[in-house]
């Protein structure tokens, strides 16, 4: 993996400020979290993207101390397939140096990092934090973790697609089954109707729609249908 020698702060780009940071803030507001950060490496372009809702003072301190080189929420978490609760990183040598200072900035100590693996060896990390007490944090985590997973992949794909080369390489590849199901949805059929038509279970229909939605970088099925139509994958219902 590319070492985090330099970071590109997407928040400083005009598009980043309006799109990405706002998207992170919206994630925090919706799910009741305090701060969120995102970082990714793209092995094709060699770029490291990062942006966060953390206060500027902490951002400057973090970059100044080059914490990104030792921060276990970046280094260790990227090698897990499951979201990593920061509790699990306490043994990491880098943990104390970063989190001890974070406390001085009154930043929350509970958090979770969601590792995302993309198709071309690209990795993304969405970290969210909360200043809830441990039992409340565990409860909140259980409630939001599935949404955080979906949002992390959506955000990662959006960032990766913002680079031209990755966009061309990463165009959605839907299977014949996914196209078939999406075409029936576009024609106004319910998931139960589609299941009956194709003689498969409703959940199989649902998992294919979910996959199509995420391949098309859409958060809703209606959005996915729209994008599939505009890409010429299906015809308007």
């Amino acid at each position, binding site marked *: 993996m590319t070492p985090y020698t330099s970071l590109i702060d997407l928040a400083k780009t005009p598009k980043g400020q309006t799109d990405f940071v706002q998207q992170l803030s919206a994630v925090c507001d919706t799910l009741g979290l305090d701060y969120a950060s995102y970082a990714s490496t793209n092995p094709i372009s060699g770029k490291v993207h990062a942006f966060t809702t953390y206060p500027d003072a902490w951002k400057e301190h973090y970059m100044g101390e080059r914490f990104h080189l030792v921060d276990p929420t970046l280094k260790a978490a990227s*090698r897990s397939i499951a979201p990593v609760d920061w509790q699990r990183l306490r043994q990491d040598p880098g943990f104390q140096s970063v989190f001890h200072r974070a406390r001085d900035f009154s930043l929350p100590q509970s958090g979770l990092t969601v590792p995302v693996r*993309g198709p071309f060896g690209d990795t993304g990390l969405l970290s969210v934090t909360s200043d809830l007490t441990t039992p409340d944090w565990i409860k909140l985590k259980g409630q939001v973790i599935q949404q955080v997973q979906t949002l992390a992949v959506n955000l990662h794909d959006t960032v990766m697609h913002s680079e031209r080369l990755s966009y061309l390489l990463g165009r959605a590849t839907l299977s014949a089954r996914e196209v078939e199901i999406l075409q029936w949805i576009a024609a106004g059929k319910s998931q139960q109707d589609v299941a009956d038509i194709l003689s498969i279970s409703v959940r199989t229909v649902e998992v294919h729609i979910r996959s199509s939605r995420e391949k098309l970088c859409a958060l809703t099925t209606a959005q996915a249908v729209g994008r599939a139509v505009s890409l010429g994958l299906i015809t308007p219902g």
Partner: protein
Amino acid sequence: MLLVVDALNKHRFGAILDEMYQLRARVFQDRMGWDVNVHNGREIDLFDGLDPAYVITLNDSYGVTGCARLLQTTGPHMLSDVFFDILDGEPPLRSATVWESTRFCVDRQRLSGGHGKNTVSYTTSELMVGIMEYAKSAGIADIITVIDPLMDRILHRSDNAPYGYVGKTADMGKVKALAALIDCSDQRISKVRAFAGIDGDIFAPEEEVAAALAPTPDAAMNPELKTYMRDQITSAETERERAAAIALQNALSGAATSGSRAFDA
């Protein structure tokens, strides 16, 4: 009982992973005749190098009785990169909330003629429940799992029938393989638990397994020193630190060869 080993804790469980690779060689090459690479009696492929998570079933003496390998479907995984035949050339499912499970197997030799928890049927159910519970806690809703028809029949008989299949049944060697869909819902988890009679928390604490794997120090060793050495071994953060701690314990107890198991990996 079950243990989840991933990139963050694998330095503590080298011996368990080594046993797992040997089990996979016996199952996938010897019994199922799949075209897999076996080196030195261990079946290891490229995907083992991608930091997957392994869900591993252990018997009471911490021996490996079954295993499965989990990868995200958003990145490189077997259905996207290897199992073309099953998908008939179609692109695979890709979702943040779907994981892929491959190399699912249980040790039929070790478990044949066993009783209670030491049976193929119980261990298969336990492994499935472990995968579903670990995945669910990570926010995963569904598992797509590559299995052989015999395993598929076992799932049907264990009140754990897949809710669907993707692609077709493909020839993989002596036996066929297919991709089945399993939801990680509370409903399915409790059904399989009820069928197999699985109660309570089935995940073994990491500390307990790490401590059990550490070689036993000389009985004559000073108890305080013994505790100190055990802490050093179980809290080691890298394989090198662990090996050094074990070597020191061996030197202190004068048993230079008893720790060989820890060096297997």
